[in-house]
């Protein structure tokens, strides 16, 4: 990489280059959508697992922890086989669309939110649940209150999932296909632009991604240190 590419990257950043902004916007949009979907599904499930005793709970919990480290290309492959023309959901024609990326990233984020919400909430005082029952709360009121009491754990779970999803390249590449102005994200762009020798855009996008990651980590640290939560 040469000096010109570096200067060009700085120029792209300072000028808020249209393509740079569009790609960044795509990345954030996909990651926000998939994290939101994962949060809506996983948070109530996490409450349920944390406060209910049932057969096979231990197995489920260790499965959840294992799935947290799911390789992105495996998720890509899995969703690809579902959405591709010959797959069971091929008729929807979702392949290489933003929806496909969001589905793949949701699958990735789901176990992360579930696992972290579960472990955060199970560290709450076991007497919380009994207190809510004895004060006469309905199941829905209990869940709402537990989430409120464990809000810092829930927020860190969601932030962590967002951080993972926004920086992953496997599913976005396999399911989105890096289509310019359509499904191209920061990570897929960096991977392909670098191969083509177009360093300037890669460097600029790399800086943006670092800033996002830094922001997420800063948020997590703030929650844990200043709001007395546990990750």
């Amino acid at each position: 990489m040469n000096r010109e590419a570096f200067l060009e990257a700085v120029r792209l950043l300072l000028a808020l280059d249209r393509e740079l902004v569009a790609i960044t916007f795509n990345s954030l949009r996909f990651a926000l959508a998939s994290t939101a979907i994962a949060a809506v599904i996983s948070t109530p499930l996490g409450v349920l697992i944390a406060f209910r005793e049932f057969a096979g709970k231990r197995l489920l919990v260790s499965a959840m922890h294992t799935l947290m480290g799911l390789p992105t290309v495996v998720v890509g492959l899995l969703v690809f086989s579902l959405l591709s023309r010959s797959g069971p959901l091929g008729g929807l024609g979702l392949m290489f669309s933003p929806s496909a990326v969001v589905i793949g990233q949701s699958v990735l984020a789901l176990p992360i939110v579930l696992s972290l919400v579960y472990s955060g909430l199970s560290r709450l005082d076991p007497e919380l649940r009994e207190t809510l029952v004895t004060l006469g709360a309905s199941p829905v009121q209990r869940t709402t209150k537990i989430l409120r009491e464990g809000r810092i754990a829930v927020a860190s779970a969601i932030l962590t999932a967002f951080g993972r999803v926004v920086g992953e390249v496997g599913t976005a590449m396999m399911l989105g296909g890096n289509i310019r102005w359509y499904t191209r994200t920061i990570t897929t762009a960096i991977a392909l632009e670098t191969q083509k020798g177009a360093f300037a855009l890669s460097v600029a996008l790399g800086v943006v991604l670092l800033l996002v990651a830094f922001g997420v980590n800063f948020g997590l640290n703030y929650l844990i240190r200043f709001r007395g939560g546990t990750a």
Partner: protein
Amino acid sequence: MSAIRIQELTFSYADSQSRQALLEIPHLAISHGTISVLTGDNGCGKTTLLKLLAGLLIPSSGTIDTAAGPPVLVHQRPYLFAESVRANVAWPLKIRGVKRDELRERVDRALAQVGLTRFALRWALSLSGGEKQRVAIARALVLKPEVLLLDEPTSNIDVASVRTVERVLRMLAGDGTTVVMSTHNEASAYRLADELIPLAAGRPAPLRVNVLQGTLLDPGVNHIGRFRVTTGAEMFCPAATGSFTHAVVRMEDVILSQHEMDSSAQNHLPGTVQAVATADDELVRVDLDCDFPLSALVTHRSVEELSIAPGVRLYATFKASAVRLY
């Protein structure tokens, strides 16, 4: 009238290996508007019984009748919500959709009852143990429960708070609330209990002390004071200053004799035997009327030698120093 009636209650955890039930209570009735105190060592089943009464645990067999609806339990280390004292106390009403004016009024009253009016806007988690305990009691009181259950309400808190909590519980019982609490704080138990319920290894255990309500008459001279029982009878006790309301005499410390004993013990009280009951393999409990009820634990052999039976007149003897004041 009983507020709570227990019949043939047993409880064990579903995954328990042991054959014996963790808790086994053949019969127990708790009267309306009284304070009942569960006593016994750690692990004797006090907390388990309270959770059964609160409906947080389901009996393995038997029945618990709580005529007045489900009681509210205040835990030993209450869980307070991460919000203000006021919000904590208001929450049970909020989830019931109580209107704003009524809610405010009931929360204010509950906070006043536990003496925390000035703490309403404080962050609940920043309070001391005793203050937290009182917030938890207020949070239960807003529901105006007919039965209030408390697990060790005076064990993790400072001395001043113990007195406040005791006063609050007395006042509640006076207003008709039935209070059932556990404690291993003897002083609290004797001062508060209308009924002592000793438990041992999950079973009701015999009561081994006489608890007499009354007043300390004078601080005493030569280490001896006088205590007047509410029935009007008097006994000698250790000299003491302060406001004591209860005298406690262990049943084992009461000696029975046919004639008045010429001894160093200060208390010689004539009385009539009311009942004789086997306490365990070794001991018999003899209930006397000495112008106030007084019980003694004696051996089977003594019962035979003194021909103790209902109606027999005897003397009860115990040292002034055997009387403990609370």
